[in-house]
Protein backbone atom coordinates (compact mmCIF):
# COMPACT_ATOMS: atom_id res chain seq x y z
CA UNK A 1 0.00 0.00 0.00
CA UNK A 2 2.73 2.39 0.98
CA UNK A 3 4.62 1.42 -2.16
CA UNK A 4 1.64 2.31 -4.34
CA UNK A 5 1.22 5.70 -2.73
CA UNK A 6 4.86 6.43 -3.27
CA UNK A 7 4.77 5.38 -6.90
CA UNK A 8 1.59 7.37 -7.46
CA UNK A 9 3.11 10.56 -6.13
CA UNK A 10 6.27 10.00 -8.14
CA UNK A 11 4.24 9.49 -11.29
CA UNK A 12 2.14 12.57 -10.58
CA UNK A 13 5.18 14.74 -10.04
CA UNK A 14 6.92 13.49 -13.19
CA UNK A 15 3.74 13.99 -15.22
CA UNK A 16 3.17 17.49 -13.94
CA UNK A 17 6.74 18.52 -14.68
CA UNK A 18 6.53 16.99 -18.14
CA UNK A 19 3.37 18.97 -18.79
CA UNK A 20 4.99 22.19 -17.68
CA UNK A 21 8.16 21.63 -19.67
CA UNK A 22 6.10 20.53 -22.65
CA UNK A 23 4.04 23.72 -22.62
CA UNK A 24 7.21 25.76 -22.35
CA UNK A 25 8.84 23.92 -25.26
CA UNK A 26 5.72 24.52 -27.35
CA UNK A 27 5.89 28.23 -26.69
CA UNK A 28 9.63 28.48 -27.14
CA UNK A 29 9.53 26.33 -30.26
CA UNK A 30 6.97 28.64 -31.80
CA UNK A 31 9.12 31.69 -31.09
CA UNK A 32 12.27 30.00 -32.39
CA UNK A 33 10.64 28.80 -35.59
CA UNK A 34 9.30 32.23 -36.41
CA UNK A 35 12.23 34.22 -35.19
CA UNK A 36 15.38 32.31 -36.01
CA UNK A 37 15.34 33.52 -39.58
CA UNK A 38 15.90 37.05 -38.44
CA UNK A 39 18.78 36.33 -36.15
CA UNK A 40 22.20 37.35 -37.41
CA UNK A 41 24.99 39.72 -36.45
CA UNK A 42 23.39 42.60 -38.35
CA UNK A 43 20.20 42.22 -36.35
CA UNK A 44 22.10 42.74 -33.14
CA UNK A 45 24.28 45.59 -34.32
CA UNK A 46 22.19 47.72 -36.65
CA UNK A 47 19.60 50.33 -35.94
CA UNK A 48 15.97 49.63 -36.83
CA UNK A 49 14.77 50.69 -40.25
CA UNK A 50 11.40 50.84 -41.90
CA UNK A 51 9.58 51.11 -38.58
CA UNK A 52 11.51 48.15 -37.22
CA UNK A 53 10.67 45.66 -39.94
CA UNK A 54 14.19 45.78 -41.31
CA UNK A 55 17.51 46.56 -39.77
CA UNK A 56 18.33 45.55 -36.25
CA UNK A 57 17.69 46.27 -32.61
CA UNK A 58 21.00 47.57 -31.33
CA UNK A 59 19.71 50.87 -29.85
CA UNK A 60 16.82 49.02 -28.30
CA UNK A 61 19.12 46.50 -26.63
CA UNK A 62 21.19 49.31 -25.20
CA UNK A 63 18.11 51.13 -23.90
CA UNK A 64 16.77 47.95 -22.33
CA UNK A 65 20.01 47.21 -20.53
CA UNK A 66 20.31 50.78 -19.29
CA UNK A 67 16.76 50.72 -17.97
CA UNK A 68 17.44 47.42 -16.22
CA UNK A 69 20.65 48.72 -14.64
CA UNK A 70 18.90 51.84 -13.33
CA UNK A 71 16.04 49.75 -11.97
CA UNK A 72 18.34 47.26 -10.25
CA UNK A 73 20.62 49.95 -8.88
CA UNK A 74 17.65 51.48 -7.12
CA UNK A 75 15.57 48.44 -6.25
CA UNK A 76 18.20 46.07 -4.87
CA UNK A 77 19.67 48.30 -2.13
CA UNK A 78 16.27 49.71 -1.19
CA UNK A 79 14.72 46.27 -1.24
CA UNK A 80 17.43 44.61 0.79
CA UNK A 81 17.37 47.38 3.36
CA UNK A 82 13.61 47.23 3.70
CA UNK A 83 13.58 43.46 3.93
CA UNK A 84 16.28 43.56 6.59
CA UNK A 85 14.39 46.20 8.49
CA UNK A 86 11.15 44.25 8.27
CA UNK A 87 12.65 41.00 9.37
CA UNK A 88 15.16 42.14 11.97
CA UNK A 89 14.11 45.44 13.40
CA UNK A 90 10.52 46.35 12.88
CA UNK A 91 8.13 45.96 15.76
CA UNK A 92 5.05 43.91 15.00
CA UNK A 93 2.74 46.92 14.90
CA UNK A 94 4.90 48.61 12.28
CA UNK A 95 5.73 45.54 10.26
CA UNK A 96 2.17 44.39 9.68
CA UNK A 97 0.84 47.54 8.00
CA UNK A 98 4.03 47.84 6.00
CA UNK A 99 3.58 44.30 4.73
CA UNK A 100 -0.04 44.97 3.85
CA UNK A 101 1.04 48.05 1.93
CA UNK A 102 3.68 46.06 0.09
CA UNK A 103 1.15 43.45 -0.92
CA UNK A 104 -1.18 46.15 -2.14
CA UNK A 105 1.61 47.66 -4.19
CA UNK A 106 2.35 44.27 -5.73
CA UNK A 107 -1.25 44.11 -6.88
CA UNK A 108 -1.32 47.39 -8.75
CA UNK A 109 -1.77 46.73 -12.49
CA UNK A 110 1.26 47.60 -14.57
CA UNK A 111 -0.55 50.20 -16.62
CA UNK A 112 -1.43 52.11 -13.47
CA UNK A 113 2.25 52.05 -12.55
CA UNK A 114 2.95 53.44 -15.99
CA UNK A 115 0.60 56.31 -15.42
CA UNK A 116 2.00 56.84 -11.92
CA UNK A 117 5.53 56.84 -13.27
CA UNK A 118 4.50 59.26 -15.94
CA UNK A 119 2.83 61.60 -13.47
CA UNK A 120 5.65 61.45 -10.91
CA UNK A 121 8.88 61.04 -12.83
CA UNK A 122 8.09 62.42 -16.25
CA UNK A 123 5.89 65.32 -15.33
CA UNK A 124 6.28 66.26 -11.64
CA UNK A 125 10.01 65.64 -11.42
CA UNK A 126 10.52 66.90 -14.94
CA UNK A 127 12.49 63.96 -16.31
CA UNK A 128 10.23 63.64 -19.32
CA UNK A 129 10.23 60.45 -21.35
CA UNK A 130 13.59 59.04 -20.40
CA UNK A 131 15.50 55.98 -19.33
CA UNK A 132 15.60 57.42 -15.82
CA UNK A 133 11.81 57.55 -15.67
CA UNK A 134 11.51 54.04 -17.03
CA UNK A 135 14.12 52.61 -14.69
CA UNK A 136 12.69 54.28 -11.60
CA UNK A 137 9.17 53.18 -12.45
CA UNK A 138 10.39 49.63 -12.94
CA UNK A 139 12.19 49.84 -9.60
CA UNK A 140 8.87 50.73 -7.99
CA UNK A 141 7.32 47.68 -9.55
CA UNK A 142 10.15 45.36 -8.63
CA UNK A 143 10.36 46.47 -5.00
CA UNK A 144 7.34 44.63 -3.56
CA UNK A 145 8.32 41.39 -5.24
CA UNK A 146 11.93 41.61 -4.19
CA UNK A 147 11.16 42.69 -0.62
CA UNK A 148 8.60 39.96 -0.08
CA UNK A 149 10.84 37.17 -1.30
CA UNK A 150 13.93 38.45 0.49
CA UNK A 151 12.08 38.90 3.75
CA UNK A 152 10.55 35.50 3.39
CA UNK A 153 14.01 34.07 3.02
CA UNK A 154 15.43 35.96 5.97
CA UNK A 155 12.54 34.96 8.18
CA UNK A 156 13.00 31.33 7.26
CA UNK A 157 16.50 31.35 8.71
CA UNK A 158 16.28 29.66 12.05
CA UNK A 159 16.60 31.82 15.15
CA UNK A 160 19.23 29.36 16.31
CA UNK A 161 21.66 31.01 13.99
CA UNK A 162 20.91 34.47 15.29
CA UNK A 163 21.35 33.32 18.86
CA UNK A 164 24.56 31.58 17.93
CA UNK A 165 25.83 34.80 16.40
CA UNK A 166 24.89 36.77 19.48
CA UNK A 167 26.58 34.18 21.67
CA UNK A 168 29.74 34.66 19.65
CA UNK A 169 29.52 38.41 20.19
CA UNK A 170 28.82 39.32 16.58
CA UNK A 171 27.10 42.62 16.01
CA UNK A 172 23.78 42.35 14.22
CA UNK A 173 25.25 43.87 11.09
CA UNK A 174 28.05 41.35 11.05
CA UNK A 175 25.63 38.50 11.65
CA UNK A 176 23.55 39.68 8.72
CA UNK A 177 26.47 40.03 6.40
CA UNK A 178 28.27 36.83 7.25
CA UNK A 179 25.46 34.48 8.22
CA UNK A 180 21.89 35.48 7.63
CA UNK A 181 22.06 36.91 4.13
CA UNK A 182 24.12 33.99 2.82
CA UNK A 183 21.69 31.60 4.42
CA UNK A 184 18.80 33.36 2.77
CA UNK A 185 20.63 33.37 -0.55
CA UNK A 186 18.29 30.98 -2.41
CA UNK A 187 15.30 33.15 -1.60
CA UNK A 188 17.16 36.33 -2.46
CA UNK A 189 18.29 34.86 -5.74
CA UNK A 190 14.79 33.69 -6.54
CA UNK A 191 13.49 37.14 -5.73
CA UNK A 192 16.15 38.75 -7.89
CA UNK A 193 15.38 36.45 -10.81
CA UNK A 194 11.69 37.11 -10.55
CA UNK A 195 12.27 40.85 -10.31
CA UNK A 196 14.60 40.94 -13.30
CA UNK A 197 12.13 38.84 -15.19
CA UNK A 198 9.34 41.17 -14.28
CA UNK A 199 11.41 44.19 -15.30
CA UNK A 200 12.35 42.82 -18.70
CA UNK A 201 8.84 41.63 -19.36
CA UNK A 202 7.18 44.91 -18.52
CA UNK A 203 5.55 46.69 -21.42
CA UNK A 204 2.66 48.90 -20.45
CA UNK A 205 4.56 50.77 -17.76
CA UNK A 206 7.47 51.53 -20.06
CA UNK A 207 5.41 52.89 -22.94
CA UNK A 208 4.41 55.80 -20.74
CA UNK A 209 7.78 56.39 -19.09
CA UNK A 210 10.78 55.47 -21.17
CA UNK A 211 8.86 55.94 -24.37
CA UNK A 212 8.82 54.94 -27.98
CA UNK A 213 11.93 56.51 -29.50
CA UNK A 214 14.11 53.88 -31.15
CA UNK A 215 17.25 55.94 -31.48
CA UNK A 216 20.46 55.00 -29.64
CA UNK A 217 20.24 56.79 -26.29
CA UNK A 218 23.07 59.22 -25.70
CA UNK A 219 22.40 59.68 -22.02
CA UNK A 220 20.11 58.42 -19.32
CA UNK A 221 17.76 61.33 -19.83
CA UNK A 222 17.05 60.32 -23.41
CA UNK A 223 13.92 58.46 -24.31
CA UNK A 224 14.66 54.86 -25.25
CA UNK A 225 12.49 52.00 -26.39
CA UNK A 226 12.69 48.85 -24.35
CA UNK A 227 12.76 45.44 -26.02
CA UNK A 228 9.33 44.46 -24.74
CA UNK A 229 7.82 47.70 -26.09
CA UNK A 230 9.53 47.02 -29.43
CA UNK A 231 8.08 43.52 -29.59
CA UNK A 232 4.66 44.90 -28.75
CA UNK A 233 4.83 47.59 -31.40
CA UNK A 234 6.06 45.21 -34.08
CA UNK A 235 3.48 42.53 -33.43
CA UNK A 236 0.44 44.68 -32.66
CA UNK A 237 0.94 47.98 -34.41
CA UNK A 238 3.17 47.58 -37.43
CA UNK A 239 1.92 45.38 -40.23
CA UNK A 240 4.54 42.99 -41.48
CA UNK A 241 6.49 43.30 -38.28
CA UNK A 242 5.86 39.75 -37.09
CA UNK A 243 9.18 38.29 -38.18
CA UNK A 244 11.12 41.05 -36.48
CA UNK A 245 8.89 40.70 -33.41
CA UNK A 246 9.71 37.02 -33.06
CA UNK A 247 13.37 37.69 -33.72
CA UNK A 248 13.40 40.32 -30.97
CA UNK A 249 11.58 37.92 -28.66
CA UNK A 250 14.27 35.33 -29.30
CA UNK A 251 16.98 37.86 -28.49
CA UNK A 252 15.13 38.77 -25.31
CA UNK A 253 14.97 35.13 -24.27
CA UNK A 254 18.70 34.72 -24.80
CA UNK A 255 19.28 37.96 -22.88
CA UNK A 256 17.24 36.67 -19.95
CA UNK A 257 19.22 33.45 -19.92
CA UNK A 258 22.46 35.39 -19.92
CA UNK A 259 21.42 37.85 -17.19
CA UNK A 260 20.06 35.05 -15.05
CA UNK A 261 23.30 33.11 -15.33
CA UNK A 262 25.35 36.15 -14.39
CA UNK A 263 23.07 37.03 -11.48
CA UNK A 264 23.04 33.47 -10.17
CA UNK A 265 26.80 33.22 -10.44
CA UNK A 266 27.27 36.50 -8.63
CA UNK A 267 24.95 35.67 -5.78
CA UNK A 268 26.39 32.20 -5.42
CA UNK A 269 29.94 33.43 -5.37
CA UNK A 270 29.16 36.33 -3.15
CA UNK A 271 26.81 34.88 -0.63
CA UNK A 272 26.90 31.15 -0.53
CA UNK A 273 30.63 30.91 -0.39
CA UNK A 274 30.36 32.19 3.12
CA UNK A 275 28.31 29.38 4.52
CA UNK A 276 29.58 25.93 5.18
CA UNK A 277 26.23 24.37 5.99
Amino acid at each position, binding site marked *: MRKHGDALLTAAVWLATALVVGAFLWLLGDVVIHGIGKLDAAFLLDAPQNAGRDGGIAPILVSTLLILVVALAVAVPLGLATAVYLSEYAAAQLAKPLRVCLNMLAGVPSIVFGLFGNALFCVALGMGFSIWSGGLTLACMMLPLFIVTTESGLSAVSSEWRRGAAALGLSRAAALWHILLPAAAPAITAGLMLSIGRALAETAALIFTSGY*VDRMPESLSDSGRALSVHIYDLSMN*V*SGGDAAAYGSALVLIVLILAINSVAVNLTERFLQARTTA
Partner: protein
Amino acid sequence: MISMEKKWCAAVCVGLSLCASAWAGGNKLVLTGSSTIAPLALEIGKRFEQQNPGVRVDVQTGGSTRGVNDARTGLADIGMASRAMKSDEAQVLVAHRIAMDGIGIILHQKNPVKNLSDEQIKQIYTGQIGNWREVGGEDRKITVVNKAEGRSTLELFLHHFQLNNPDIRAHVVIGDNQQGIKTVAGNVGAIGYVSIGTAEYEQTHGTPIQLLPMAGVGASVANVREGKFPLSRPLNLLTKGTPTGLAKRFIEFAQSAAVDDLVTAQYFVPLAR
Protein backbone atom coordinates in the same frame (compact mmCIF):
# COMPACT_ATOMS: atom_id res chain seq x y z
CA MET B 1 38.53 39.88 -6.97
CA ILE B 2 37.84 43.59 -7.00
CA SER B 3 36.40 44.78 -3.72
CA MET B 4 32.78 45.72 -3.52
CA GLU B 5 33.61 49.35 -2.77
CA LYS B 6 35.69 49.76 -5.91
CA LYS B 7 33.00 48.14 -8.00
CA TRP B 8 30.41 50.57 -6.67
CA CYS B 9 32.65 53.55 -7.33
CA ALA B 10 33.17 52.48 -10.89
CA ALA B 11 29.46 52.01 -11.38
CA VAL B 12 28.65 55.42 -9.95
CA CYS B 13 31.26 57.09 -12.17
CA VAL B 14 29.90 55.41 -15.27
CA GLY B 15 26.41 56.36 -14.25
CA LEU B 16 27.29 60.00 -13.71
CA SER B 17 29.05 60.25 -17.03
CA LEU B 18 26.02 58.86 -18.74
CA CYS B 19 23.97 61.58 -17.14
CA ALA B 20 25.72 64.23 -19.16
CA SER B 21 22.85 65.09 -21.35
CA ALA B 22 23.29 65.84 -24.99
CA TRP B 23 20.07 67.78 -25.12
CA ALA B 24 20.50 70.98 -27.05
CA GLY B 25 17.89 73.67 -26.43
CA GLY B 26 15.51 74.36 -29.30
CA ASN B 27 16.49 71.57 -31.63
CA LYS B 28 14.13 68.94 -30.31
CA LEU B 29 10.67 68.24 -31.57
CA VAL B 30 8.29 66.10 -29.52
CA LEU B 31 5.34 64.35 -31.14
CA THR B 32 2.79 62.35 -29.17
CA GLY B 33 -0.48 60.69 -30.02
CA SER B 34 -1.93 58.03 -32.24
CA SER B 35 -0.08 54.72 -32.29
CA THR B 36 -1.35 54.26 -35.84
CA ILE B 37 0.60 57.26 -37.06
CA ALA B 38 3.58 56.67 -34.75
CA PRO B 39 5.56 54.29 -37.03
CA LEU B 40 5.07 56.68 -39.96
CA ALA B 41 6.04 59.72 -37.88
CA LEU B 42 9.10 57.83 -36.67
CA GLU B 43 10.31 57.18 -40.20
CA ILE B 44 9.55 60.71 -41.39
CA GLY B 45 11.38 61.99 -38.32
CA LYS B 46 14.44 59.89 -39.12
CA ARG B 47 14.59 61.23 -42.68
CA PHE B 48 14.11 64.77 -41.39
CA GLU B 49 16.97 64.26 -38.94
CA GLN B 50 19.20 63.03 -41.73
CA GLN B 51 18.50 66.12 -43.78
CA ASN B 52 18.78 68.48 -40.81
CA PRO B 53 21.76 67.46 -38.69
CA GLY B 54 21.53 68.44 -35.04
CA VAL B 55 17.76 68.19 -34.96
CA ARG B 56 16.02 65.53 -32.90
CA VAL B 57 12.50 64.31 -33.49
CA ASP B 58 11.09 62.26 -30.60
CA VAL B 59 7.90 60.33 -31.21
CA GLN B 60 5.82 58.94 -28.34
CA THR B 61 2.54 57.05 -28.41
CA GLY B 62 -0.50 57.19 -26.18
CA GLY B 63 -3.52 57.43 -28.46
CA SER B 64 -5.19 60.11 -30.58
CA THR B 65 -6.89 61.69 -27.58
CA ARG B 66 -3.54 62.08 -25.90
CA GLY B 67 -2.16 63.69 -29.03
CA VAL B 68 -4.98 66.21 -29.00
CA ASN B 69 -4.55 66.96 -25.29
CA ASP B 70 -0.78 67.23 -25.42
CA ALA B 71 -0.93 69.57 -28.41
CA ARG B 72 -3.43 71.71 -26.55
CA THR B 73 -1.46 71.91 -23.31
CA GLY B 74 1.89 72.26 -25.00
CA LEU B 75 3.34 69.05 -23.58
CA ALA B 76 4.03 68.07 -27.16
CA ASP B 77 5.08 70.28 -30.05
CA ILE B 78 2.92 68.32 -32.47
CA GLY B 79 0.04 65.98 -31.74
CA MET B 80 -0.81 62.99 -33.90
CA ALA B 81 -4.45 62.08 -34.42
CA SER B 82 -5.82 59.40 -36.73
CA ARG B 83 -9.16 61.13 -37.18
CA ALA B 84 -10.75 64.38 -38.20
CA MET B 85 -10.94 66.99 -35.46
CA LYS B 86 -14.01 67.61 -33.43
CA SER B 87 -15.56 71.06 -33.43
CA ASP B 88 -14.25 72.15 -30.04
CA GLU B 89 -10.77 70.94 -30.91
CA ALA B 90 -10.81 72.80 -34.22
CA GLN B 91 -11.14 76.10 -32.38
CA VAL B 92 -7.74 75.72 -30.73
CA LEU B 93 -5.83 73.35 -32.97
CA VAL B 94 -4.88 73.31 -36.61
CA ALA B 95 -4.89 69.97 -38.42
CA HIS B 96 -2.33 69.17 -41.09
CA ARG B 97 -3.19 66.08 -43.06
CA ILE B 98 -0.26 63.89 -44.02
CA ALA B 99 -1.97 60.75 -45.34
CA MET B 100 -5.25 58.92 -45.70
CA ASP B 101 -6.27 55.53 -44.40
CA GLY B 102 -9.19 53.47 -45.66
CA ILE B 103 -11.15 51.05 -43.50
CA GLY B 104 -12.37 47.83 -45.02
CA ILE B 105 -14.29 44.77 -43.86
CA ILE B 106 -12.23 41.59 -43.72
CA LEU B 107 -13.27 37.96 -43.67
CA HIS B 108 -11.30 34.76 -43.49
CA GLN B 109 -9.94 33.63 -46.83
CA LYS B 110 -11.80 30.33 -46.63
CA ASN B 111 -15.13 32.07 -46.17
CA PRO B 112 -17.11 31.61 -49.42
CA VAL B 113 -18.97 34.87 -48.91
CA LYS B 114 -17.49 37.45 -51.26
CA ASN B 115 -19.83 40.37 -50.90
CA LEU B 116 -21.94 41.92 -48.19
CA SER B 117 -24.36 44.81 -48.51
CA ASP B 118 -24.34 47.64 -46.01
CA GLU B 119 -27.62 46.40 -44.57
CA GLN B 120 -26.24 42.90 -44.09
CA ILE B 121 -23.17 44.26 -42.33
CA LYS B 122 -25.40 46.25 -40.01
CA GLN B 123 -27.49 43.19 -39.22
CA ILE B 124 -24.44 41.05 -38.57
CA TYR B 125 -22.95 43.60 -36.20
CA THR B 126 -26.18 44.12 -34.28
CA GLY B 127 -26.61 40.38 -33.87
CA GLN B 128 -29.69 39.98 -36.04
CA ILE B 129 -27.83 37.64 -38.37
CA GLY B 130 -25.90 35.02 -36.46
CA ASN B 131 -24.93 32.41 -38.98
CA TRP B 132 -23.08 32.67 -42.27
CA ARG B 133 -25.63 30.60 -44.12
CA GLU B 134 -28.12 33.46 -43.76
CA VAL B 135 -25.98 35.54 -46.10
CA GLY B 136 -25.11 32.81 -48.53
CA GLY B 137 -22.21 31.13 -46.81
CA GLU B 138 -21.62 27.91 -44.92
CA ASP B 139 -23.40 26.78 -41.80
CA ARG B 140 -21.10 28.45 -39.30
CA LYS B 141 -21.54 30.84 -36.40
CA ILE B 142 -20.46 34.38 -37.12
CA THR B 143 -17.77 35.75 -34.81
CA VAL B 144 -18.14 39.52 -34.75
CA VAL B 145 -14.91 41.43 -34.13
CA ASN B 146 -15.34 45.01 -32.98
CA LYS B 147 -12.91 47.71 -31.92
CA ALA B 148 -12.68 49.02 -28.37
CA GLU B 149 -14.59 52.14 -27.47
CA GLY B 150 -12.92 55.44 -28.17
CA ARG B 151 -10.85 54.26 -31.13
CA SER B 152 -11.24 56.48 -34.16
CA THR B 153 -11.70 53.44 -36.40
CA LEU B 154 -14.73 52.43 -34.36
CA GLU B 155 -16.22 55.90 -34.44
CA LEU B 156 -15.82 56.05 -38.19
CA PHE B 157 -17.40 52.62 -38.59
CA LEU B 158 -20.34 53.54 -36.39
CA HIS B 159 -20.85 56.85 -38.17
CA HIS B 160 -20.80 55.26 -41.61
CA PHE B 161 -23.27 52.53 -40.73
CA GLN B 162 -25.42 54.75 -38.55
CA LEU B 163 -24.99 52.56 -35.48
CA ASN B 164 -24.45 53.16 -31.79
CA ASN B 165 -21.86 51.17 -29.90
CA PRO B 166 -24.31 49.73 -27.33
CA ASP B 167 -26.25 48.24 -30.26
CA ILE B 168 -23.34 46.15 -31.41
CA ARG B 169 -23.22 42.53 -30.30
CA ALA B 170 -19.54 41.71 -30.53
CA HIS B 171 -17.87 38.41 -29.74
CA VAL B 172 -14.37 39.75 -29.62
CA VAL B 173 -13.26 43.29 -28.86
CA ILE B 174 -9.80 44.25 -30.05
CA GLY B 175 -7.46 47.10 -29.39
CA ASP B 176 -5.08 47.30 -32.32
CA ASN B 177 -5.28 46.61 -36.03
CA GLN B 178 -2.96 43.65 -35.89
CA GLN B 179 -4.99 42.01 -33.15
CA GLY B 180 -8.00 42.25 -35.46
CA ILE B 181 -6.11 40.72 -38.35
CA LYS B 182 -4.74 37.88 -36.26
CA THR B 183 -8.16 37.18 -34.76
CA VAL B 184 -9.86 36.97 -38.17
CA ALA B 185 -6.99 34.96 -39.63
CA GLY B 186 -7.40 32.38 -36.89
CA ASN B 187 -11.15 31.95 -37.14
CA VAL B 188 -12.96 30.98 -40.36
CA GLY B 189 -16.23 32.44 -39.15
CA ALA B 190 -14.92 35.83 -38.14
CA ILE B 191 -15.70 39.26 -39.55
CA GLY B 192 -13.88 42.45 -38.67
CA TYR B 193 -12.77 45.83 -39.97
CA VAL B 194 -9.23 47.13 -40.26
CA SER B 195 -7.08 49.58 -42.15
CA ILE B 196 -7.17 48.74 -45.86
CA GLY B 197 -3.47 49.22 -46.42
CA THR B 198 -2.63 46.81 -43.62
CA ALA B 199 -5.12 44.25 -44.89
CA GLU B 200 -3.79 44.51 -48.44
CA TYR B 201 -0.28 43.93 -47.22
CA GLU B 202 -1.23 40.95 -45.10
CA GLN B 203 -3.21 39.46 -47.97
CA THR B 204 -0.28 39.66 -50.35
CA HIS B 205 1.98 38.10 -47.74
CA GLY B 206 -0.09 35.02 -47.20
CA THR B 207 -2.24 35.84 -44.19
CA PRO B 208 -5.56 34.05 -44.79
CA ILE B 209 -7.85 37.05 -44.97
CA GLN B 210 -9.82 38.74 -47.72
CA LEU B 211 -11.01 42.31 -48.10
CA LEU B 212 -14.63 42.86 -48.99
CA PRO B 213 -15.81 45.59 -51.36
CA MET B 214 -18.09 48.15 -49.80
CA ALA B 215 -21.11 49.55 -51.62
CA GLY B 216 -19.76 48.04 -54.79
CA VAL B 217 -16.38 49.74 -54.57
CA GLY B 218 -13.41 47.44 -54.20
CA ALA B 219 -11.38 47.95 -51.03
CA SER B 220 -7.98 48.96 -52.27
CA VAL B 221 -5.43 51.63 -51.54
CA ALA B 222 -5.83 52.93 -55.09
CA ASN B 223 -9.55 53.50 -54.62
CA VAL B 224 -8.98 55.31 -51.35
CA ARG B 225 -6.45 57.59 -53.02
CA GLU B 226 -8.91 58.47 -55.74
CA GLY B 227 -11.57 59.12 -53.15
CA LYS B 228 -13.86 56.42 -54.49
CA PHE B 229 -13.94 54.32 -51.35
CA PRO B 230 -16.69 55.36 -48.93
CA LEU B 231 -14.96 54.67 -45.62
CA SER B 232 -11.72 56.51 -45.02
CA ARG B 233 -10.09 58.70 -42.41
CA PRO B 234 -7.38 61.36 -42.45
CA LEU B 235 -4.10 61.04 -40.56
CA ASN B 236 -3.43 64.44 -39.02
CA LEU B 237 -0.60 66.29 -37.36
CA LEU B 238 -2.03 68.83 -34.94
CA THR B 239 -0.52 72.08 -33.76
CA LYS B 240 -1.81 74.75 -31.45
CA GLY B 241 -2.44 77.57 -33.82
CA THR B 242 -0.23 78.08 -36.84
CA PRO B 243 3.07 76.26 -36.50
CA THR B 244 6.36 78.15 -36.51
CA GLY B 245 10.05 77.33 -36.71
CA LEU B 246 11.06 73.70 -36.44
CA ALA B 247 7.50 72.43 -36.20
CA LYS B 248 6.58 74.32 -39.38
CA ARG B 249 9.52 72.87 -41.28
CA PHE B 250 8.73 69.38 -40.12
CA ILE B 251 5.07 69.58 -41.10
CA GLU B 252 5.90 70.95 -44.52
CA PHE B 253 8.35 68.10 -44.94
CA ALA B 254 5.76 65.55 -43.83
CA GLN B 255 3.23 66.89 -46.32
CA SER B 256 5.64 66.99 -49.21
CA ALA B 257 6.08 64.42 -51.94
CA ALA B 258 9.51 63.66 -50.51
CA VAL B 259 7.95 61.29 -47.99
CA ASP B 260 5.40 59.60 -50.25
CA ASP B 261 7.50 56.45 -50.33
CA LEU B 262 7.52 56.37 -46.53
CA VAL B 263 3.74 56.72 -46.46
CA THR B 264 3.24 53.83 -48.86
CA ALA B 265 5.80 51.78 -46.97
CA GLN B 266 3.56 52.00 -43.92
CA TYR B 267 0.55 50.98 -46.04
CA PHE B 268 -1.19 54.30 -45.86
CA VAL B 269 -2.41 56.37 -48.74
CA PRO B 270 -0.31 59.38 -49.74
CA LEU B 271 -2.14 62.65 -50.32
CA ALA B 272 -3.48 63.13 -53.78
CA ARG B 273 -1.53 65.90 -55.47
